């Protein structure tokens, strides 16, 4: 009797833990370790060459990123992919991006998460090139800064 009860409890415990699997409806961080910027450093220019009364001290520039996402855990499932730009201590104020069509274009600010794909995951690897158009506060970019991004997936 005691043995049977223990087995039943074990099954219940395992069942309760199943939703943590990547195959369940949830948000997961995507393995984007194969993603690399094409340039080592994006060089930003003053949007307005000279200072103005409107105090537009924006720096802007573009750089490309070769995205490679490992979507194998979610193959043959419907899912939503998001680009995440966590809040961080940087001069960047806004990033727009264009794509080659596999992901959606859009724009993002620090602290935001923006949809880049919704639909079936048909391949274990998704490759795309994002061209990032970065805007930064010229009063806060005295030296090289690093902007951290990552991708998240919501399974339906």
């Amino acid at each position: 009797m005691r043995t049977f009860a223990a087995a039943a409890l074990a099954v219940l415990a395992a069942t309760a833990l199943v939703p943590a699997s990547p195959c369940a409806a949830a948000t997961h961080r995507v393995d984007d370790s194969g993603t690399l910027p094409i340039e080592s450093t994006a060089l930003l220019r003053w949007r307005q060459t000279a200072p103005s009364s409107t105090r537009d001290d924006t720096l802007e520039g573009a750089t490309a990123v070769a995205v490679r996402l490992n979507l194998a855990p979610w193959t043959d499932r419907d899912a939503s992919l998001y680009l995440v730009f966590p809040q961080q201590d940087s001069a960047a104020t806004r990033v727009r991006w264009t794509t080659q069509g596999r992901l959606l274009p859009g724009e993002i600010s620090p602290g935001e998460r923006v949809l880049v794909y919704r639909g079936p995951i048909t391949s274990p690897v998704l490759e795309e090139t994002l061209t990032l158009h970065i805007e930064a506060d010229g009063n806060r970019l005295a030296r090289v800064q690093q902007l951290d991004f990552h991708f998240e997936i919501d399974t339906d």
Partner: protein
Amino acid sequence: MRAINITSRAVAGGALAVIAAMSPEPSGAFTVSITARNPRTLYLQVGVGSFNGIYTSNGTPANNATVNVVSVTVPAAQVGSGAVQTMTTNSTASISFYDNFVFCNAPAQLYVGGFYRSTSNTGPATLTATSPPNLVNANGDRIPFSQISWTSSGNGDSGAQPFPAGTFNGATQTIGTIARNQWAESCHTFRYANSNFVANGTYTGRVVYTLSAP
């Protein structure tokens, strides 16, 4: 019952370990490095300058090698009398390239302006003027450069000028500053003190203005 509970905890612990191994949460992230291509940019215009368009219409600065002349002819009867002689310029620069506003009154005034762009909060840009000790004529006669001074104003201005009134000192001196990410401009009206009785002739000397950033 206590024995069963102990057993169940052990089993549940095992299940947790297995599931954790099956669903690793990747810690992926990619990093983009950014920096300013031109972290510091300076523009200085003394007298005539050049701008491609007007700044407020997306104009950009250009080079202009013109060296303007500020001069006065002192009537013979007044040489050395102490009667201040207002000087005039050969500059035609009356408008500000910032907004096309008629800020100075050429040729009576000399436009002095510029801007300083910087991503670093390390202090303002400084405008200096370097004058020789004397103006000299063809015979080597001299007039101290300190005989020349200027007042500062600007059409429509009511506050303090960024490049205020002063007197040349025959050396390098500070004319004013431009705060980070600011445009600053003033109009200088020069005058000759005329306090020395000097031989006739044309006395000349060149003042070099330099805008430098930290």
